[in-house]
């Protein structure tokens, strides 16, 4: 018969402290692994579900562990304080804010993936609406238990209550399994499916361990060491499982692709055993042929200014020069948009998954109102893209691209021909075969009316950097190809 003063009942056994230490260690590891990539690589914070889901999952893990520690008598705490109340920890923090939150996030992610990849449209219910909706049964259940005061002084629920609670937990795991099964045939590029299966494994194992511990405790209520052992095992296994939080992959992937492609590389370091891969753009990450080879050296054939712009843009050197010009006068997003839609066009039509990744990336980056490189298109074109019923449609962006091309033709192209960038391109083309020494390119006369300098205004009042530095053209060409 266990005395009421033993540590098995009150808490405070040595194994308890060990378990708590392990739990704290795992939480710190979890936090550092989530925060480390953002801080070290200075990844800008992305908005939207890509950021909040991992945050909520880490928050949920934390709450779950905390609830376990504080409700299952690990610590020798006086039950008189209001903040040690059983209901707060064992009911609210374990349910809606812990396990329920974790599973709801995963279900919301699976739901999003289902809509995007199987139904091929943007999800109709925004995630900030879906998540509270998924949490509502948990909140209702917790409120009900709290109201009925179903817990005894030892923080246990009677069997009458345990069965529905376990059912709710299992129901959500089953729902997650169902959602994951609906997308199991999609070949994801960034291991989303594997992460979901891992999440399911973790959640169901946790439930399994918990049920076993509970049953053992109820059946052998008087065996002290069983109680101690079971709660030790419960906390340790749950801590261990939380370490396998697969949400970090999504943090890395999504944060990384939100940076514009003109920024320097970010090595995708994964803290699990994976080879580090370096991607500059979504196109490269998806393995689109010739992506990123915009920077390779390519003999610039004579560029005829009377050719239509869409034909000229197929020439890589011209495209690079034009893109640099557009970036210099703050109109670069049009050319980048053209570039990425062109890469999208290279994906074969029998590979809808990659098309959908690319399409979604383009939408997030260029089309959504308030996007980082939002392009100047009409309301209709934008709405047609956002409400499309087929994300893998090869003509998804053709109307918007048409508008952007018109904009480039009538607006940028005129100024490009009289700009420095075009002169430089002509010089390179003519000097390619014969690497002649050029003393300095005297440029005078009618200049492009585009911005002479904006960013460098403070440090370069006389625009000296604009002019091509004297030197060998060959060296310039060599240098530009190494970037």
């Amino acid at each position, binding site marked *: 018969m266990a005395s009421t003063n033993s540590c098995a009942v009150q808490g405070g056994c040595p194994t308890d402290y060990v378990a708590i230490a392990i739990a704290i260690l795992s939480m710190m590891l979890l936090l550092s692994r989530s925060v480390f990539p953002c801080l070290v690589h200075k990844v800008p914070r992305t908005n939207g579900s890509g950021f909040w889901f991992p945050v909520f999952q880490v928050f949920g893990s934390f709450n779950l562990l905390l609830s376990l520690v504080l409700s299952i008598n690990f610590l020798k705490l006086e039950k008189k304080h209001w903040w040690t109340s059983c209901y707060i920890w064992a009911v609210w923090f374990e349910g809606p804010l812990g396990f329920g939150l974790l599973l709801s996030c995963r279900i919301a992610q699976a739901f999003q993936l289902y809509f995007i990849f199987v139904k091929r449209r943007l999800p109709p219910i925004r995630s900030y609406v879906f998540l509270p909706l998924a949490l509502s049964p948990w909140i209702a259940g917790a409120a009900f238990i709290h109201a009925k005061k179903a817990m005894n002084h030892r923080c246990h629920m009677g069997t009458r209550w345990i069965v529905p609670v376990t059912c709710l937990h299992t129901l959500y795991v089953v729902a997650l399994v169902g959602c994951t099964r609906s997308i199991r045939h999609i070949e994801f590029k960034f291991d989303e499916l594997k992460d979901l299966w891992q999440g399911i494994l973790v959640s169901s194992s946790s439930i399994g361990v918990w049920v076993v511990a509970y049953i053992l405790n109820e059946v052998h209520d008087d065996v002290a060491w069983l109680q101690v052992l079971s709660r030790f095992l419960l906390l340790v296994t749950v801590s261990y499982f939380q370490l396998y939080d697969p949400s970090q992959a999504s943090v890395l992937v999504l944060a990384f692709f939100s940076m514009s492609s003109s920024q320097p590389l970010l090595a995708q370091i994964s803290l699990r055993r994976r080879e580090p891969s370096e991607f500059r753009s979504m196109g490269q990450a998806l393995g689109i042929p010739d992506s990123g080879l915009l920077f390779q050296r390519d003999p610039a054939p004579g560029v005829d200014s009377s050719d*239509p712009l*869409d034909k000229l843009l197929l020439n890589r050197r011209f495209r690079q020069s034009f893109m640099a010009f*557009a970036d210099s*006068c*703050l*109109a*670069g*997003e*049009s050319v980048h948009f053209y570039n990425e839609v062109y890469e999208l066009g290279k994906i074969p039509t029998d590979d809808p998954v990659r098309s959908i990744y690319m399409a979604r990336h383009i939408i997030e980056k260029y089309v959504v*109102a308030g*996007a980082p490189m*939002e*392009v*100047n*298109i*009409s*309301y*209709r074109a*934008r709405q047609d893209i956002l409400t499309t019923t087929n994300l893998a449609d090869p003509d998804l962006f053709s109307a918007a691209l*048409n508008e952007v*091309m*018109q*904009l480039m033709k*009538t*607006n*940028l192209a*005129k*100024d490009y021909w009289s700009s420095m960038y075009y002169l430089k391109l002509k010089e390179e083309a003519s000097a390619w075969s014969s690497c002649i020494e050029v003393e300095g390119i005297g440029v005078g006369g009618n200049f492009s*009316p*585009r*911005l*002479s300098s*904006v*960013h460098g*205004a403070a440090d370069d*009042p006389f625009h000296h950097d604009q002019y091509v530095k004297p030197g060998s053209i060959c060296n310039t060409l060599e240098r530009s190809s190494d970037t």
Partner: protein
Amino acid sequence: MGSLCSKQRHFDKPENEENGQAAEIERRIEQETKAEKHIQKLLLLGTGDSGKSTIFKQIKLLFQSGFGEAELKSYTSIVHANVYQTIKILHDGSKELAQNEAESSKYIISSANKDVGERLSEIGGRLNYPQLTKELAEEIGSLWNDPAIQETYSRGNELQVPDCAHYFMENLQRLSDANYLPTKEDVLYARVRTTGVVEIQFSPVGENKKSGEVYRLFDVGGQRNERRKWIHLFEGVTAVIFCAAISEYDQTLFEDEHKNRMMDTKELFEWVLKQPCFEKTSFMLFLNKFDLFEKKVANVPLNVCEWFKDYQPVSSGKQEVEHAYEFVKKKFEELYFQSTSPDRVDRVFKIYRTTALDQKLVKKTFKLVDETLRRRNLFEAGLL
């Protein structure tokens, strides 16, 4: 949006020799920035389609070498593009109205023009437009004169019909000429959305030919996505010329068909006024498109715009136009004083009535602007 403006730094006199070198460097920097400083920076801001680029073109015409033949020729394709785009918008608009409206019969194109309409709509959707031949011009003309299209044009405020539609449609014969060279007027009417930033530097030479101030004028795009780029230009601005098209109180935005243009202008003006960089910047408000405003006020009451909902018409005809204009002007003045904190009340604020297409008017207006800025400069320098 963080403050990118550097506050005025007052350099204290160096105390001893060790600071001598630092002071020398600072003095040199000050000299250089002063050399740059006498170039006055002017920004043309405003919502999309408010007339900024037209003012920009006018300034080029007035104070720079104007448009050479090569440049005029380069506008041919733009004028033709405007024609094709306009007729496509009207044709597609008439089809849409025929579907959605109760009295759909008046929007249905006559059978004679149906095929023509479909073909022109297809041409308008292409990337590269064909040359505007006499035949095409005739077809476009006949479609334009179709009553359904005219009905659609009267509802043009619900579609994104450009303001130059009427002008170009009336001049189709001339535009389709084989040796067509755009006139200055054609160039001013031509509509191109600006993207990014364009600048010119000019000196408003007075009658006595003595060079006055040097101005650097920046033109920007007005659509929402373009506005995020404005922040790069906000430092060291002498004056902001804010263009507001007062004739668009019944139209919606190009980039958001659920937002009224006048309300967007109001919000944008407020935002610009509250910018920390513009503490000492002069504001010139150009109430633009007065010619269109004149014609519209007679038919469309000002109250359709939420901002003007307390407007009461008093008379009719020319008096009414003046009354309506004064009402709008007062609204903008109220908005200015609402959005200006007490420590900024001494910055210059002037309102001008403009029609950007009218060269004489723009010249006169700019002279007034120039005078105001010069007086302000002297005041700042303590000479007034």
